[in-house]
């Protein structure tokens, strides 16, 4: 099947997907570590559960935001090129 349509747009779209996907790898691992370590800590010291959950959500949000930096930069690259 011959290639039809705008190759430039196709390339930009593929790069948008790749940039977001690669940007999501690190934060994915990080979020997993945060939740896993919190579960571990609550298992060791269940009485600290309240404090640990607050810190867990803070760490979760700080880590998760890195996906959005990748997504934002990918959108910027998509829009200006």
């Amino acid at each position: 099947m011959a290639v039809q349509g705008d190759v430039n747009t196709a390339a930009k779209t593929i790069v948008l997907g790749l940039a977001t996907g690669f940007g999501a790898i690190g934060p994915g691992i990080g979020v997993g570590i945060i939740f896993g370590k919190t579960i571990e800590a609550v298992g060791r010291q269940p009485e600290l559960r309240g404090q640990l959950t607050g810190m867990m959500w803070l760490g979760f949000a700080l880590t998760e935001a890195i996906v959005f930096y990748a997504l934002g930069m990918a959108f910027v690259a998509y829009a200006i090129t």
Partner: protein
Amino acid sequence: MLSLLATSDFNPVSEFTDFINHPYVDLPLGLDINKGVVYLWLSAATAILVPLLIIRRGLKAKPGRWQTFLEMVYDTAYTQIAKAGLPEEGMRIWFPYVGTCFIFIWAMNVIGFIPLPFSGESVQLLGVDVPKLQIYAASANLSVALTLTLVTFVATHVEGIRYNGVVGYFKSWIPAGLPPVRPLRGGSVGAAILFGLIAVVEVLSQFVRLVSLSFRLFFNMLAGHLVIAVFLGVGALMAASLGNAAFAVHIIGFPMGVALYLLEATLIAALQAYIFAALSAIYIGGAIHPEH
């Protein structure tokens, strides 16, 4: 954003920018009343009126369902958000601020997931003009997120200077334990270079906070709405190229979209409000008491 009756010329991104060019009321100086402004008013009214109505209905010693909910929100705002970040002397002024941030941003985010007829478009249904329902969050807009962040940013530095003095506050940015810099009394060159590097990093980190705090809220809501829109509208997006096979894509995409909608509306909406308020409290508290 997400039109109930999707058409094939559906573009998820343009739904977030088009409303700026189609205001309801055109005013000078860019003070147009458009969809984003209406959503902000709605959120502010909700954030003020819902707690007020619950309180005015009468607080009881044995709380009902709504009073329990409100007490839980207040307790979260007081112990989890304000107490965790602010020192004792900052509580009187800044607990109301971070509490307001929490409830206002939460109201914005939750209202962002209720389908409302503010799109300005309508569709002919049985001969009657029915306004299209759509979901749009005021916080999925960088202007809103950045304005809230700027309030925190200015408050941080004003409070830091007010409690520690200009010299004391900027001195507190330099971490303790550095070798002393004495440029006029034969101090080492290495210490001066180290001092300069750390000063640059510290000043940069203050501005990175500005970006990270606003981008986190803005992109979380934007990406949440985009993902829901793409999954619910994926059949319509692909109808042009797939034809009837697009229906099969819809069967997979639709439940996925509903699941993501529930996740975003319940967990992410509250979590982003919590994070914004908690980080504001930590930043302001860190400026009041730098050694913490």
